[in-house]
């Protein structure tokens, strides 16, 4: 077993185990913490694939930003000592059947597909390439989605401020 395989199996075991704990834990703050572990080991996978910039973004924005936002809203809206109610057995069975059937279908399809893997080593993904790709308008340039994302973030910011502020009535 090579080094890459070992690290991949380690990260994927952490991801699967903590994803299951995230969706089954009865204490909501613990579920958020397990989600943090999942996001951090996903960032480990990105580091393994040598996408250093993306892994850093994943750590700061997902693991740093979104999880903190979720934990803040948990503290604002829930009693920490309360446990979540156990969902009814029929609901759990139906959801598990749906999820397992979909997963089996997808995994069978994936395993039957032949992918042509590239064998040459591309140039390193340095920050210069990423910046030029973000701002170029030609082929493989992403200037338009970059600008649209900036408008989207502005709209989301204004919208969430207006939604969450106190009404005067």
């Amino acid at each position, binding site marked *: 077993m090579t080094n*890459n395989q070992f690290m*991949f199996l380690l990260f*994927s075991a952490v*991801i*699967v185990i903590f*994803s*299951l704990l*995230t*969706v*089954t834990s009865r204490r*909501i703050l613990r*579920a958020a913490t397990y989600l943090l572990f*999942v996001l951090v080991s*996903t960032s480990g*996978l*990105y580091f393994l*694939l*040598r996408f250093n910039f*993306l892994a850093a*973004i*994943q750590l700061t924005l*997902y693991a740093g*930003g*979104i999880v903190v936002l*979720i934990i*803040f*809203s948990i503290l604002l809206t*829930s009693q920490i000592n309360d446990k*979540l*109610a156990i*969902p009814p057995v029929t*609901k*759990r069975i*139906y*959801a598990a059947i*749906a*999820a397992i059937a*979909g*997963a089996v279908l*997808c*995994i069978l399809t*994936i*395993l039957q597909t032949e*992918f*042509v*893997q*590239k*064998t040459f*080593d591309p140039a390193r*993904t340095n920050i210069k390439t*990423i910046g030029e790709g973000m701002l170029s308008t030609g082929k*493989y340039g992403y200037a338009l*989605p970059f600008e649209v994302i900036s408008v*989207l*973030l502005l709209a*989301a*910011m204004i*919208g969430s401020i207006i*939604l*969450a502020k106190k009404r005067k009535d």
Partner: protein
Amino acid sequence: MFEGVPIHWFLVLATAMFFIGIYGFLVRKNLITMLMSIELILNSVCINFVAFNKILFPEHLEGMFFTLFIIAVAAAEASVAIAIIINIYRRIVNIDVEKMNEMKY
């Protein structure tokens, strides 16, 4: 090229994570835990994009840019969803989906 790990492993991992998220979305009743399941689903899709980019099409950085945009959209979605959740909590002092059967102002 990425030695040792075939792309099928990444895809199977992402599929497992995606459907764990689906299970959580169907089973949970608390709005914040449902939001966490959605984050799991988005994250699994990101893994797919990155693995395809690195292993099958390493000439350009298309999958990486799509993952960046997915992360930005996820951040926007989480902030708006949490604003809505806090607003709902202020009105009915509960964030279970089954208690939310009226949307009147």
